[in-house]
């Protein structure tokens, strides 16, 4: 197929439709409105379901209902809207039905702003809603990657009866890039043995997240955990750049990882042996691979558009074995490649310690940056 110029949000919506999306329910919020708008035009013309809900609460619960029928269903939102969806997401996780969530992050907390941010990593990767559960979270760094991840997101959600979130930020949602979209797949509702679709010729089915008997709830929790362990074993995805001989490794996901790649290339041009590790699944986080890299590299630089949320996962994997530096921009500020390049250059000269607190050190340097 040919490459065409697409806006991120619209390409993501179209990719979902071509992956066999049957129903979309959403509510306007910047910077993801084009997903809702694209769906409102395309789904009715294809005879599929679209509802602009009264709020994110309504939207996620419409998704919940649709997911219970076994239909391929998704919603999308941005940070404050995702917070509102947390109740429904917890119920969906507890009921063990599949859905896809596109989360186009913006600056926060509170109303924040509409600029690109990665400050909701913890919120979505660590569950978000109440109870013990783990969504699968995919973090693309380009529109093409986002488009390619959409069919996978549905497949993973259905395979593991879980929420699969495609986590990006406003810049990927809003930018335009040449992309190749997949062919249109026909809608094929699977005959799931749990789907609620009328008790005709079979015993009735009940889908619920209530288990009043604690031992039964414990069994459910263990079932979710077992499935999550399988996800951790089989579904970890990442991308590596210039890793083979890298003395220093930069780690960043999504847009931060993409900006870091420019910095890494510039550093390589200067003869610095630096590579980039970019997790695609931020949940499950590639702990094992990061631990392996820590055996080869002399130091890591973690860069994020938040105050070090993924940094905690990196620290868990590294377990104090090598120094970790951190560079973050907050509140909707996107770092320039030059800023990360300076950090790489600084690392090559500075005396680094594995005992140092990367966030404290970064905050001291931030006093200069954010003045």
């Amino acid at each position, binding site marked *: 197929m040919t490459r065409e110029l697409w806006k991120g949000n619209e390409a993501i919506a179209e990719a979902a439709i071509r992956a066999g999306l*049957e*129903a979309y*329910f959403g509510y306007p919020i910047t910077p993801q409105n084009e997903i809702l708008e694209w769906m409102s035009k395309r789904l009715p013309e294809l005879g599929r*379901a679209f*509802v602009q*809900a*009264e*709020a994110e*609460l*309504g*939207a996620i*619960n*419409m*998704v*919940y*209902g*649709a*997911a*219970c*029928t076994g*239909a391929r*269903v998704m919603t999308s939102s941005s940070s404050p809207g995702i917070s509102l969806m947390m*109740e*429904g997401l917890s*119920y969906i996780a507890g*009921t063990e039905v599949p859905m896809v969530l596109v989360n186009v992050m913006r600056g926060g907390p509170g109303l924040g702003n509409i600029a690109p941010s990665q400050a909701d990593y913890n919120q979505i990767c660590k569950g978000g809603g109440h109870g013990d559960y783990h969504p699968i979270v995919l973090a693309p760094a380009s529109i093409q990657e986002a488009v390619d991840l959409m069919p996978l997101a549905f497949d993973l959600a259905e395979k593991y009866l879980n929420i699969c979130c495609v986590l990006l930020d406003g810049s990927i949602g809003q930018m335009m890039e040449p992309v190749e979209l997949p062919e249109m797949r026909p809608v094929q509702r699977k005959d799931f043995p749990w789907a*609620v*679709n*009328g*008790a*005709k*010729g079979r015993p*009735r*089915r*009940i*889908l*619920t*997240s*209530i288990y009043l008997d604690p031992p039964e709830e414990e069994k459910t929790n263990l079932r979710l955990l077992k499935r999550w362990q399988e996800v951790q074993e089989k579904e970890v995805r990442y991308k590596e750049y210039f890793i083979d001989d890298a003395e220093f490794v930069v780690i960043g996901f999504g847009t931060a990882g993409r900006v870091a790649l420019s910095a890494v290339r510039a550093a390589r041009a200067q003869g610095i042996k630096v590579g980039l590790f970019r997790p695609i699944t931020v949940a499950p986080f590639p702990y094992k691979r990061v631990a392996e890299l820590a055996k080869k590299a002399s130091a890591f630089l973690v860069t994020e558009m938040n105050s070090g949320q993924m940094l905690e996962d990196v620290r868990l994997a590294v377990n104090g074995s090598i120094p970790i530096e951190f560079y973050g921009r907050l509140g909707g500020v996107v770092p320039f490649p030059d800023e990360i390049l300076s950090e790489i250059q600084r690392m090559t000269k500075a005396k680094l310690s594995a005992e140092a607190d990367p966030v404290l050190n970064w905050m001291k340097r931030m006093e200069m940056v954010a003045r």
Partner: protein
Amino acid sequence: MATLMVPENLVYERPKSFTDTPTHYCPGCTHGVAHRLIAEVLEEMNLTERAIGVAPVGCAVFAYNYFDTDFVEAAHGRAPAMATGIKRCLPDHIVFTYQGDGDLASIGMGEIVHAAARGENITVIFINNANYGMTGGQMAPTTLPGMKTTSSPNGRDVETQGHPIRVAEMLATLDGAGYVVRRSLHDPANIRKAKKAIRTAFEVQERKLGFSLVELLSTCPSNWNLTPVESLKWLEEHMIPFFPLGDYKVAPAVAAAKI
């Protein structure tokens, strides 16, 4: 030893769309009556295999145990949204929610108003017993002025605790509503009328004539601190004057269908 019932003596039996599950509701509560009416209508209309129920949070959280149909359990107040998602994916199925007054008229007010406004082709059975039964009888949006509850111990003071909401009247103002009525479960004559309304509501959905809701005035003897019989009398004397029975919306298309 129990006497064995021979078939010839059978004058009253469980509808086939009802499961053989002992009730968890309090003695004298009218939830059981409402459940039975729905089950009878589903069976009479031959909808059991095509119906999908949406249970609320509240006393009826386990409503799904009693119906021999597919069922889902919604988050508090969100049943109309969940029903919307199901109905949009299965437009030829019959989707109904069963909700109490706290669930529907307080935490779920946004969902119910917009489901009605969209003309969502679902049926809502709304139980109004003027309090939060499940959590121990707190004040609900339907609690009468001056009525004592566990969170209005001196009686509902409308100056500080607001006024009750008349749901049927309010939803009837929306263009998407096809059929909105209020009935009561306090005596056999009214129970028969309630059943007729439930039947009409499901017929409205079957004929794709829009949103249908039947509000049922119900008793809560446990939290009202009355006997079952006193509760029925209290409903008749106090609730009906405030929540008049009647047809609040019968859309022209519904009237023309002569259900």
